[in-house]
Structure formats: structure tokens, C-alpha cells
């Protein structure tokens, strides 16, 4: 197990820290709550580990090992959620042979909570994806694909919320523009909506109406692009106000640590992605205390 950490103290206010201590002591039941978020992306049907002589990922990955790790983390902290940021399908004969059935069944066994939809998840057509839904005991979330005139209408939610240990967590999904990436016969009448506008709406609803304590975006937009001006996670993170964590995919970006981005409300938020093929598992731990001051910017981020 490899953990790379360095301390990045983004809080500046000693006064607020003192204030926090004061109010904590005065409460009858002071509490500290802990939510663990685990995530994968672009696993691309890599159910088996890579062989030991593989040039790029020797001996890495494998779902049976990921299962052990996830279970171990869940036993340490039952308040754990597990997400995937899309491109579950395509990449090994498991997909060619079984059309995604095994991927969905295994993700259900690992108790994934939700996934967003990647472009390759349309590789057997929107009907192929629809056909595998009975094998998924987790939610498919996509806020910017409008499936109204397709078989997926009613099967994909824009967002959902989870309540763990009194902490309300809002999660929404975003997908990449399919035109030019996937042939239209595969995605059919799926409409792609501007992911930024949709993200602003989702996070506002989750924050203001649903009163979420933390908000996560599952994005298959891509981490960033050198050449083209396409929607990407880093830009999205800088433009949003309430989303705390962006779990990304598509660009197969291996990050040593999550990227800290200053958002549109001057808060620091995280953008993470764990490469591809299930060789890494992303882990983000969120710690909560009783509300002290709504304007406090005292979140310590250690990545």
C-alpha cells in the first residue's frame, strides 16, 4: 500500500480555531464525524490483475483484491461510500463476451453506491447498457445527459443524497460530449447538455434545497486538455461554489495526489482521478465537527 501525503494547511485563522475549541467544549455532546469516499474510474473491464511481467502495470489491479481493500476500509469506517466515474465497460474480453454483465455484478458485490456514465459505456449501444441495468445494485447518475427519448429514460438520476451518521452527502454525475466520440447509432437520441450549467444547478439544489453537508461530482469530462478548449474538471472546479470533491475520469490521469483548486467562492476543493484499469483506489476522508461559524474557511486539507 502506497500513501503519499504532505501537509497543506489552507486555514489561516488562529482566532477561528480558538473559537472552534470553545464551542466544542460547551456542547453537551461534542462530535467529530468521519466520512470516507472511495473511488475508481476508467476500469475498462479490467476484472483480473495485470500479469507480473506487464510492462506498465506489473501485478497491479484486480477486482478480488480491490474487494478486500474496500472491505477493510469499510470495517474501519462503516460511513464509507464507493463511487466510479465511468468507462466501466470495454477493454478486455470480459466485455466482449458478457456485455458488461460481470462488471455490473461485481460492482454490486463490492457495494458500489453510484457511478456516472462514460463514453465507452455506450459501446454496446444505449440498448446494451440498458440490458445490463438489472445486474447493477448501484445508481447510475448523470445530470447532463437527457435520456428522455431513449430506453434509459427514468433509469438514470441526475443526483442523489446519502445520509451517513447524520451527515448528508449530495452526489451528481456529469458526462462528456458524445458527438465525435461515439457514433450516434450507439447513443441514439441522448441529448448532451452543457456540463457547467448543469453542475451549477445541481450543486445549488443539493446545497440550498437538500441542505447537504458535502457535495461530490462524479465527472467523466476529463481532468484537463492541452490542446482543445473542452469542458474539464479543473475548470469546472474553479467555477463551482459548493462542490467539495470532483471524482474524475476519461483522461486516464494518474495523479500523485488530488489537485487542490480554489473555487468560485474562494474555498479550496479537490479534483481527483486514479488513472485507469483499477490499478489504484482513490480515498478521500472528510472529517466534520459541530457547526461553529458558517463563514469559517478553516478546513485543513492534507493530501
Amino acid at each position, binding site marked *: *500500500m502506497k500513501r503519499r501525503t504532505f501537509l497543506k494547511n489552507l486555514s489561516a485563522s488562529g482566532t477561528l480555531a480558538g473559537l472552534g475549541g470553545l464551542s466544542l467544549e460547551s456542547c453537551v455532546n461534542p462530535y467529530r464525524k468521519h466520512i470516507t469516499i472511495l473511488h475508481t474510474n476508467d476500469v475498462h473491464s479490467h476484472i483480473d490483475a495485470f500479469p507480473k511481467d506487464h510492462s506498465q502495470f506489473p501485478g497491479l*489491479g484486480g477486482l478480488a483484491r480491490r474487494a478486500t481493500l474496500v472491505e477493510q476500509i469499510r470495517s474501519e469506517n462503516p460511513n464509507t461510500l464507493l463511487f466510479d466515474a465511468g468507462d466501466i465497460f470495454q477493454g478486455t474480453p470480459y466485455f466482449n463476451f458478457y456485455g458488461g454483465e460481470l462488471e455490473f455484478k461485481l460492482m454490486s458485490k463490492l457495494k458500489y453506491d453510484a457511478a456516472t456514465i462514460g463514453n465507452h459505456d455506450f459501446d454496446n449501444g444505449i440498448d446494451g447498457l440498458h440490458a445490463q441495468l438489472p445486474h447493477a445494485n448501484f445508481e447510475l447518475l448523470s445530470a447532463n445527459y437527457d435520456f428522455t427519448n431513449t430506453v434509459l429514460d427514468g433509469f438514470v438520476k441526475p443526483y442523489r443524497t446519502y445520509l451517513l451518521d447524520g451527515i448528508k452527502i449530495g452526489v451528481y454525475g456529469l458526462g462528456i460530449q458524445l458527438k465525435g466520440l461515439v457514433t450516434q447509432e450507439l447513443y441514439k437520441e441522448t441529448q448532451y447538455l452543457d456540463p457547467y450549467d448543469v453542475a451549477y444547478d445541481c450543486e445549488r439544489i443539493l446545497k440550498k434545497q437538500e441542505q447537504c453537508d458535502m457535495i461530490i461530482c462524479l465527472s467523466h469530462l476529463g481532468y484537463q486538455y492541452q490542446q482543445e478548449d473542452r469542458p474539464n474538471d479543473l475548470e469546472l472546479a474553479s467555477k463551482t461554489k459548493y462542490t467539495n470533491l470532483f471524482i474524475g475520469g476519461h483522461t486516464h490521469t494518474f495523479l500523485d495526489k488530488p489537485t487542490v483548486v480554489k473555487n468560485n467562492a474562494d474555498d479550496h476543493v479537490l479534483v481527483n482521478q486514479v488513472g485507469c484499469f483499477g490499478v489504484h483506489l482513490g480515498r478521500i476522508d472528510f472529517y*466534520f465537527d459541530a457547526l461553529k461559524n458558517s463563514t469559517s474557511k478553516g478546513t485543513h486539507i492534507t493530501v
Partner: protein
Amino acid sequence: MFLKIQQFVLFVTIIMLSSCKEKRSELIEITAAQVSITDTITKTESIETFVLPYRNRIYEVLDSVLAFAPNTISKEDGRYNTTAGNLMADIVMEQANPIFKLRTGNQIDFVLLNHGGIRSVISQGPVTARTAYEVMPFENNIAVVELSGPSVLELITYLISSKRAHPIAGMQIVLDQKGQLKTLTIGNKEFNKNRNYWVATTDYLVNGGDSMVFFKDALTVTPIDYLIRNAIIDYFKKVDTIAPIIDDRYYSLE
């Protein structure tokens, strides 16, 4: 100063009371780590057991012997045409033409694939479906493109100037000593600039892959809905011995 402290204490008290009452939470700390899935982590036995029959079935299908190759088949063994290239182009012609004919009433005139699309040699010995996955790992489908005579000439010019043995079938290209086009025969007939031709290729190339820009002038595109890899597997099942040769479909008078 004294007043300020008073205000501060009052402020703290209000915040404190409201927080205890509403039980609202505040995010105070985030830690993160990328955890490698290494072979030091033990496998969950129930998952492994669940996957096993799926894996065995794949291995059984992929590794069952479909045909035999007396010699290694490579895309590097000829200058203008190669054993692997000829095999692939001939397979596309043989497997796709009946489907195309059934659907449209027309015949494929010739085939053009790309040299880079052949991803592996076929080693001497037993040939399996796994071989087809190695040779063609991509999900590329066969498509038949209708090209005008001038567009076909553009295609030939591209082929000659690329100096690569892009796989072809159904036509013969002969170059003179200077490397210029001497004769072009399509379907045993001399090339006719005034007619259109049906060209079988892959959807990847039709969409501009490998800089085959002449496909943008396609008059029509007919998808065959047949993966190249499946065409290869079906061909392997059909024949016993796979022994393509370097022939005279494309050569230079030297």
C-alpha cells in the same frame, strides 16, 4: 477593546447555542491518498470464485484451436504486400462481400485497410480466437464506401506516396522503375475513371483515421455491422490452414 471582547463572547455564545440545537455539521478536515492495488493485498475468495466460470469460458473459447499456420504471418515480410496484410484484406473481401451483396445488390470492387491496424504477428502453429484479438484488438467495423473514379486515383496516389504496405485486395497496382503508377487493375478490369467503385474498409478509416482523407469524398457509406475481428474469427473457423503468400497484387518493376 473591552467592548469588542464582550461582543466576541456574545457571538461565540450564539454560535455555540445554535450549533448544539440544530446539530449542523461543518467540514473541518480532509485527507486523501491514492492506494495502489498491489499483489500484497489478498484476493477476496468469494469474488475470485464468482469470476472463475466467466474466465474459464473466455479461455476455453479464446484458446480453442480454430486453424493452423504453417509459417509465421507478418506485416513486415514484404515491401509492397505482406502475408499478414494480404490475409486481412482477403478476409474482409471474402467475409463482407456476401453481406454487402445481399443488402445492396452490389459487389465490393476492392479492399483497403491500414498497415498500422494489424497489431500483432500470427505465429507459426495453432491459431485461436485469441490470435484474432491480438491482431485486431480494436472494435473496428467493416464499412463499404462508394468512391468516384478520381477519388480512387487519389486513394492510389496516397497508397503509393505512403510507401507502406497498406493491405489491399481485389485490385492490382503495378509501379514502373521510377515508382510511378504503371497499371491499375480493379476486379481483373482496367481502371475506369468514369465509374464509381465500392471500396470495403473500416469505419475508423472512413472517419479520417491514418490521414486517409480521400474517404471524406465518399459518395455513400454502407455500414456492414461486422467487426473486423469477428470476420477474422469466422474465417479462422472456416479454413484449416492459414498460409497467405506475398503475391503480385502490388509490386514495382525493378
